[in-house]
């Protein structure tokens, strides 16, 4: 068995436990350990991507318990790509945190590692209940990270965030156990087989469970009408945490993609067309409303949070409307948007700090101490997030628009994606001119200017965005292959539980002989 597969979980878990022991009295040591662990996880992620590029599924049966009886971790192109992306964002967020934020509360680094473990686990696991467990791991870490630094806005945001996510967890459990009760399995590949073969009487229950699952994922991904928790939570989190949260909505998108393509992916049977009638309208509504939110935001943090929601809307539009090419475009967009939104959250904090009491409110405040550098960074990030040429956002949106072209929904998709891009650009430009130009004449001399240790992660994220343009073709090749692998689910099922078809598509009823 390929033990490398378990490393993205094992490394952060062990490091996190170690950090709990030494964080309180040795802050410098905690920094080094945390940074080293994150770097090693990133190196493992690179190796995993190289392995996944061969095109095979890698299955890791935990404790050598065979699927479907034990828990499996499954590596395919999609999981490998997302784990690498998580590692890149985590490195940048951690570097930024080490510049000062991590000392404002105990156990920042331990929580950070547990958060990474939860995210990586959600991307790797092939078991539905295990997915719930990893969701809880990443959520409890995110609750504490959201509160890092404390203060009333954070507490208020955290109460809402925790309440909605605990409710979501309850619904998740109901859906999972309902699926188990009807099909008798929790392994996703095994579920896919049994859902396709489900008898007529069970179809309604399976579809109800599927819709509940997707509802929960919609909460995590922040889809309309379940996104109202996001702007406040993300804009009140401290900068490195908000940057890491940029990947969290993508966990929701990943789960929707995985479950709809694998478990409910069959052309016939109980899962057929489960999401078709409503996911596209919901995604388009999310996108449109988020663009209006960007335009109406009164604080920079809120504006970036709405940009996050817009990115989710764009991705799910592409996934539902574009077939294989659409999924490929959505994955390209996922990489681009995560990087740029993380950099925007870091930039927000740098800008806010130099504006004295005005904070990140979009009102006239003191002049900035470093207007040129901050201005250039803001310009690059805004152009990229809005998708103006020659940025990576432009390429991603081009792929998405091309993918949806022959479809019946093309009119809606094109008009809403293009209009919302314009609105996001206008919102970004308005915020930029307010923050950089419409200022008082003198800067706030008490404010702390951005230091090289803070420029480094921000610059690195922006350079990654530029690299996406330069290396667009290899990335597109990779996302194309990923989309094909994802939508051909037979390979996944065979890799996990072998080629023998399941002849008993339901669990034993009580009293039935074994």
């Amino acid at each position: 068995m390929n033990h490398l597969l378990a490393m993205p979980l094992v490394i952060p878990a062990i490091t996190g436990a170690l950090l709990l022991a030494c964080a309180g009295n040795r802050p410098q040591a905690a920094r080094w350990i945390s940074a080293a662990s994150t770097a090693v996880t990133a190196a493992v992620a690179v190796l995993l991507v190289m392995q996944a590029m061969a095109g095979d599924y890698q299955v890791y049966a935990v404790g050598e318990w065979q699927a479907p009886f034990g828990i499996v971790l499954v590596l395919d192109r999609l999981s490998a790509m997302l784990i690498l992306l998580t590692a890149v964002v985590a490195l940048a967020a951690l570097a930024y945190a080490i510049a000062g934020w991590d000392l404002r509360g105990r156990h920042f680094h331990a929580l950070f590692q547990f958060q990474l473990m939860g995210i990586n686990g959600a991307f790797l696991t092939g078991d539905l209940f295990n997915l719930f467990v990893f969701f809880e791991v990443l959520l409890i870490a995110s609750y504490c990270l959201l509160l890092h630094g404390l203060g009333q806005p954070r507490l208020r945001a955290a109460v809402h965030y925790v309440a909605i996510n605990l409710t979501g967890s309850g619904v998740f459990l109901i859906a999972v156990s309902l699926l188990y009760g009807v099909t008798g399995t929790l392994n996703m590949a095994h579920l896919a087989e049994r859902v396709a073969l489900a008898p007529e009487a069970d179809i309604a229950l399976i579809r109800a469970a599927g819709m509940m699952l997707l509802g929960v994922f919609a909460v995590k991904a922040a889809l309309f009408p379940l996104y109202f928790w996001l702007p406040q939570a993300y804009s009140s989190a401290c900068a490195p945490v908000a940057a890491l949260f940029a990947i969290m909505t993508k966990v929701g998108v990943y789960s929707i993609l995985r479950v709809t393509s694998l478990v409910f992916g069959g052309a016939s049977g109980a899962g057929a067309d489960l999401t078709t009638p409503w996911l596209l309208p919901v995604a388009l509504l999310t996108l449109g409303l988020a663009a209006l939110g960007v335009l109406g935001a009164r604080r920079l943090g809120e504006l970036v949070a709405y940009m996050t929601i817009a990115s989710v809307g764009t991705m799910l539009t592409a996934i539902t409307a574009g077939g294989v090419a659409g999924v490929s475009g959505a994955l390209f967009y996922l990489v681009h948007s995560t990087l740029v939104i993380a950099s925007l959250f870091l930039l927000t904090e740098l800008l806010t700090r130099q504006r004295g009491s005005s904070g990140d409110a979009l009102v006239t405040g003191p002049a900035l101490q470093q207007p040129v550098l901050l201005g250039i960074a803001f310009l690059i990030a805004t152009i990229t997030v809005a998708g103006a040429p020659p940025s990576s956002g432009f390429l991603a949106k081009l792929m998405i628009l091309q993918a949806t072209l022959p479809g019946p929904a093309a009119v809606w998709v094109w008009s809403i994606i293009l209009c919302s891009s314009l609105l996001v650009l206008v919102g970004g430009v308005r915020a930029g001119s307010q923050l950089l130009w419409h200022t008082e004449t003198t800067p706030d001399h008490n404010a702390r200017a951005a230091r090289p240790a803070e420029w480094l992660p921000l610059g690195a994220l922006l350079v990654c965005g530029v690299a996406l343009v330069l290396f667009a073709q290899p990335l597109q090749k990779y996302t194309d292959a990923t989309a094909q692998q994802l939508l051909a689910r037979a390979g996944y099922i065979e890799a996990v539980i072998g080629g023998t078809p399941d002849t008993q598509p339901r669990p034993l009823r009580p009293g039935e002989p074994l």
Partner: protein
Amino acid sequence: MEFLLASALGVTTACGVYLLLRGRTFSVVLGLSLLSYAVNVFIFTMGRVTTGAPPIVTTGVSTYTDPLPQALVLTAIVIGFGMTAFFLALAVRAYRDSGSDHVDGSEPVHPEKRSP
């Protein structure tokens, strides 16, 4: 038995949702707890309600109870308990810092009580 369990689950869930939608953090905590109790029992019943049947294969026995939901519900109980404890601590901290136990962190202002 099934009817009784299903009714109890329904009533508990309804109470949980009602409390969850209240404005004070303590009601919300109670609501979330009730909801998680209902969910836990629901997981349990998804393994079918059987009495007096062993969970492990034994010679001479033909009826079994499903052991997996029991393992699942154990995990769910532990996670639910931890989350409730965290939420309580959070609620207490929010009350101390803001002086209000309202979920929005401040007392709502009613239109008729607003000073002119």
